[in-house]
């Protein structure tokens, strides 16, 4: 009788089948079977989880690639194109999505990075704990709630119109926590020896952070920004509340409507005519393409990182 028999609750019967050829651990058939079953279940779970991913990518690519491969898709807007007409492109939506993402990043990155610096380099005690807690809450805030908040401020309180910039404000709320968390992770990985060496040379703390800590963690911060961008570009809820669609090119974030890829999908999906259906999938493909490229870029940048876990 081995220790294994004592530790497994169900092996009283199997203890009789002592098979020394198995070496140290004696394992009953039932336990072996359960072990094998678990292995099969884990593999199956993984393969099942891959099915929707493959299915979605396959659907979007096969249904969308036709239009996306045409140059007109990238160069033209939908101006003057009705749902029964073939033609036109997504240039207006791509431009709107990129423009909003850029403006959002310009606002969210400084706040996110500084918050992370506060949490890692300065913050102790209750305020830091509260900030950290609120970052978690912000991470979990549904995008529709962020949009409602901006609506309540922008439209109801200040009486302004629904414009692109209001969407950006809602997206900022969703992007900040992503940047804080990834930057925080990277700053924690920067070895303290670097900070101490800098202090020992008489460099003040803020210069140490700006010239030593941030450059060391730079690639990780860039990764966080790219992943944050990927997250907000696919958001649709704030656009539904705050950013009406237009078929035309637009660059003014403070007046008029502005098209984005999610709202372009949302506008075309309710149509039943084939040209509009094709445009739905082509814009979905374009959106996934942009987001996957950002993700990929983020992961590649992460590989160049100077600090590692």
């Amino acid at each position, binding site marked *: 009788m081995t*220790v294994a*028999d004592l*530790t*497994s609750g169900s092996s009283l019967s199997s203890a009789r089948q002592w098979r020394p050829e198995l070496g140290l*651990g004696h394992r009953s058939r039932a336990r*072996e079977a*359960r072990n094998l079953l678990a*292995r099969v279940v*884990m593999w199956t779970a993984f393969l099942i*989880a891959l099915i929707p991913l493959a*299915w979605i990518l396959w*659907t979007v690519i096969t249904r969308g690639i036709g239009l996306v491969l045409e140059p007109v898709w990238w160069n033209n807007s939908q101006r003057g194109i009705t749902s029964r007409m073939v033609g036109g492109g997504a240039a207006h939506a791509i431009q709107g999505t990129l423009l909003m993402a850029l403006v959002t990043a310009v606002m969210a990155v400084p706040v996110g990075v*500084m918050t992370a610096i*506060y949490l*890692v*380099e*300065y913050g*102790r*005690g209750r305020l830091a704990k*509260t*900030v950290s*807690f*609120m970052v*978690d*809450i*912000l*991470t*979990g805030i*549904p*995008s*529709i*709630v962020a949009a*409602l908040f901006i*609506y*309540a401020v922008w439209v*109801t*309180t200040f009486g302004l119109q629904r414009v692109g910039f209001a969407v950006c404000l809602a997206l900022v*709320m969703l992007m*900040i926590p992503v940047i*804080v968390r990834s930057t925080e992770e990277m700053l*924690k990985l920067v070895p*303290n020896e670097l*900070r101490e060496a800098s202090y020992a040379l008489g460099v*003040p*703390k*803020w210069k140490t952070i*700006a010239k030593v800590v941030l450059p060391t963690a730079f690639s990780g911060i860039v990764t966080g920004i790219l992943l944050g961008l*990927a997250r907000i570009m*696919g*958001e649709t*809820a704030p656009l*539904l*509340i705050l950013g009406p669609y237009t078929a035309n090119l637009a660059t003014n974030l403070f007046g008029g409507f502005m098209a984005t890829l999610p709202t372009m*999908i949302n506008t075309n*999906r309710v149509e039943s005519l084939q040209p509009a259906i094709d445009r*739905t999938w082509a814009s979905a493909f374009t959106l996934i393409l942009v*987001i*996957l490229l950002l*993700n990929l870029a983020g*992961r590649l940048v992460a590989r160049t990182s100077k600090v590692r876990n």
Partner: protein
Amino acid sequence: MSSTTGASIVDQARDPLGNNTPQGDRASTGRLGDRLFGGTAKGAGVLVIALVTLTAVFLLSQALPALGKNGANFLTSTEWNVDGSNPRFGIANLLWVTVASSVIAMIIAVPVGVCVALFITQYSPPWLSQPAAGLIDLLAAVPSIVYGIWGAFVFGPHITGLQNVVNTLFGWLPFFGNETGGVSSSGTIFFIGIVLSIMVLPIVTALSREVFAQTPVTHKEGALALGATQWEMIRTAVLPFGKPGVISASMLGLGRALGETVAVLIILSSLANDTKWSWSVFNGGETFASKIANNAAEFDSPQKSGAFIAAGLVLFILTFVVNAIARVVIERRKAFSE
């Protein structure tokens, strides 16, 4: 401690009396640059707190007037009529659909997510574990509107068969009944639950994976040395260690499922205003988020938008509580394992 907080050793020095010094700013010189930089960092942190607080304040301040005029019980009424001078609206329907779809999503996503996380950390061959994790993470990168159109136009038509099976086997339960004839439709709470489970799977997997990977090697080797099979080792060492992480991950996933908007908006068929109440998940309906998004175009008076903002406030509170629980559970684990 320094490796996890990034606090420098300088910060942890004790004063001559042996008391802990006030930590944090010991390396600051008090010069203008330091005060400015530190102040800006603190300001950014305070801004984050302000954002969450202001969200609550603004939603509340705009919901209250609308609630004051509400002729029905906000919590128990199933009506939703916000037009005119005598609005009557309640969230009972929205709450039921939101919770039911999210619960279905969690029932599927938590076991599968935990198994996938175990696969990645324990079973997968070393060359596969990184790519496998990357692939599952890709599920999180797919925008929810794409889940929506895929679910409605591609996946949906295949689901009625499964709904028929569940209805035949469990139709005696009120949840799986077919009094509304929804079994043959794909715009059901049941189906959106399945789609939501796919959307939250990467969230559940990511955090579970992280904690499973942190299981102390000594625990695992101890179990194996006692003769445990790999599965017994996982059951006795990895799973107990990872339990708080799994709970936390599930809560985060639940928060996401509760607040998901566009996929629900596209897939779930909304019901007419006077539809009879049904417990069946083979039924349409609207969640908090999809109700708000569905009616965004009608926000023309403070009275109307106030009613929807009140619904949004309930959603905010729900997700706040769920996320706070996730945070508390994982914090306690940290305190325990350090």
